[in-house]
């Protein structure tokens, strides 16, 4: 069958992004909105909006029954979940399967397989993908035995989900019992699942991930890698492709590992396989798979010239890939900044409100994905992402030059933004040299205390 009308079960910049590709493909869009988003930019772009509930996400964007009912009631043949919200919860995919609605994403079973981080680790090992030494945790006694074997420093991580929630660093083994308790409580609150496991901490690691597409029948493509080491408390702030300084051999090994994992699951749709790469010896370890489109997908689109949303829709239609692996070309370098409504001078606290004025940059090699125009509201109920600026150039130096010019041209009035952080980052010689690891932002902020007067560690 061919998808003619898609219900978009998301909001913000990704909703606007999905609508754009649907327009190009002559697919009608129905945007599910909460009461707070009736007047949003994506609501104006969609062919139709349907209000699924009040502002609070638990009663609207996380309400799978309302979303599926909205799709049935508006005769949409497919649902695009975007990222976040219900995109990685099996319930929406399951309900779509039960009601003959195409879910633009993996199967419910695949979402479950990668959502359980211990199961995903097992799958990775079965696929011959290296994982960091680790162990599941039964009793405290078992945990102590396992921890001694793994050695400190180590991480206590949540089985039920990633993103830094339910994660605790343990530098001395005597701190393990307390960390286990804290992590379990956090994991329970975040994922409704208190199970935790242990994994060796890789110090000075880079976060490198591979964009993959699976056709659901065992076929898989990789669209290259992205370096996402610029993070604060496990929240990515800037991403780029290719990963600076990564050797061709390492890149090939990472992409091959990601393909093995994708094929093992007969994965369907777009996904990202995340790795940690040890800066000391170049060894890499499987971290997790994100079974959805990612915030940073435009970086890959810029270097490959592909439209990942269009690929998602084609796969959901059963049409497979638009391109063969050997035809994918990687051209130049792309870097993306996430512009958030948050205050760097106040510990990056969210800053909701109304963007009375919003001026975004343009120019050669510049792409802006945003849902904020002058007068747009930034509701307090959702994430603080205002927009993404993606600069593409022939090499990293030219992409960086374009990005710095673009970031300087942004003007947002009415809400606080992290623009000052990005300006500091882009001007930093170590960043310009491409010397990145996941501790980089912490060190940068330590050297520039004005940007982070009050800080805590996650």
């Amino acid at each position: 069958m061919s998808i003619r009308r898609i219900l978009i079960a998301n909001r913000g910049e990704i909703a606007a992004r999905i609508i754009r590709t649907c327009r190009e493909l002559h697919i009608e869009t129905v945007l599910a909105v909460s009461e707070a988003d009736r007047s949003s930019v994506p609501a104006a772009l969609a062919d139709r909006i349907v209000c699924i509930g009040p502002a609070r996400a638990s009663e609207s964007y996380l309400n799978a029954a309302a979303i599926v009912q909205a799709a049935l009631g508006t005769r949409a043949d497919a649902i695009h979940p975007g990222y976040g919200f219900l995109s990685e919860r099996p319930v929406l995919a399951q309900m779509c399967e039960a009601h003959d609605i195409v879910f633009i994403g993996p199967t419910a079973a695949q979402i479950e397989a990668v959502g359980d981080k211990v199961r995903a680790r097992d799958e990775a090992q079965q696929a011959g993908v290296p994982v960091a030494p680790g162990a599941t945790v039964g009793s405290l006694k078992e945990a102590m035995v396992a921890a001694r074997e793994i050695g400190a420093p180590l991480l206590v991580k949540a089985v039920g989900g990633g993103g830094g929630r339910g994660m605790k660093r343990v530098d001395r083994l005597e701190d393990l019992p307390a960390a286990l308790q804290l992590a379990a409580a956090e994991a329970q609150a975040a994922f409704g699942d208190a199970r935790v496991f242990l994994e060796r901490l890789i110090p000075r690691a880079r976060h490198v991930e591979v964009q993959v597409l699976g056709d659901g029948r065992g076929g898989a493509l990789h669209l290259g890698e992205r370096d996402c080491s610029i993070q604060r408390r496990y929240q990515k702030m800037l991403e780029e492709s290719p990963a600076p300084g990564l050797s061709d051999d390492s890149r090939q090994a990472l992409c091959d590992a990601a393909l093995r994992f994708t094929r093992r699951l007969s994965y369907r749709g777009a996904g990202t396989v995340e790795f940690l790469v040890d800066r000391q010896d170049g060894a890499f370890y499987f971290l997790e798979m994100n079974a959805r489109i990612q915030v940073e997908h435009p970086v890959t689109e810029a270097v490959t010239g592909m439209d990942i949303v269009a690929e998602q829709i084609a796969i959901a239609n059963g049409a497979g890939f638009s391109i063969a692996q050997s035809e994918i070309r990687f051209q130049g370098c792309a870097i993306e900044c996430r512009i958030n409504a948050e205050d760097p001078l106040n510990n990056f606290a969210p800053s909701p409100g109304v963007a009375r004025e919003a001026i975004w940059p343009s120019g050669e090699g510049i792409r802006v994905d945003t849902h904020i125009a002058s007068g747009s509201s930034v509701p307090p109920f959702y994430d603080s992402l205002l927009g993404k600026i993606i600069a593409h150039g022939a090499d990293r130096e030219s992409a960086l030059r374009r990005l710095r010019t673009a970031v300087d041209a942004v003007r947002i009035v009415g809400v606080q933004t992290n623009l000052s952080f990005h300006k500091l980052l882009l001007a930093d010689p170590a960043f310009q040299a491409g010397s990145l690891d996941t501790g980089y932002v912490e060190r940068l902020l330590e050297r520039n205390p004005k940007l982070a007067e009050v800080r805590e560690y996650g």
Partner: protein
Amino acid sequence: MNLTAADIAEILRLVEGSTFDELSLEFEGLKLNFKRGADGAIARPAAPASPTAMLAPVEPPPVAAAAADPNLLDVRSPMLGTFYRAPKPGAPPYVAVGAAVEAETIVCIIEVMKLMNTVRAEVRGTVAEILVADGALVEYGEILLRVRKPD
């Protein structure tokens, strides 16, 4: 005195045949304003009882459509779903225009994924209008019916 729909239609006819551009009538607890449009046609009156007024739009903008008459109370859908006037097909509807309702009176069902949710009036009065067709998709916050406050 009580105004009926026929009374208002009669008044409209009188205004249309007259040279007046505007007419304001005030009764106990009821105010009617008529204004002739620029092209000479009669604009939609503020009174709700006119048979031509208040057809449910195809895609109702729920917030904008709030009743202008302070004596009419909106009953809004507490969720997105399919609107049913009766407990099952063929059964008599929960309420019809003219029915007296109390806060606890069930006025319709909203079905979400085979789950039937009863909706109560939450207000007291007489059903003045039912704005949604049986079996239609209603959005969260959409006005389902209007209830006239008791005198």
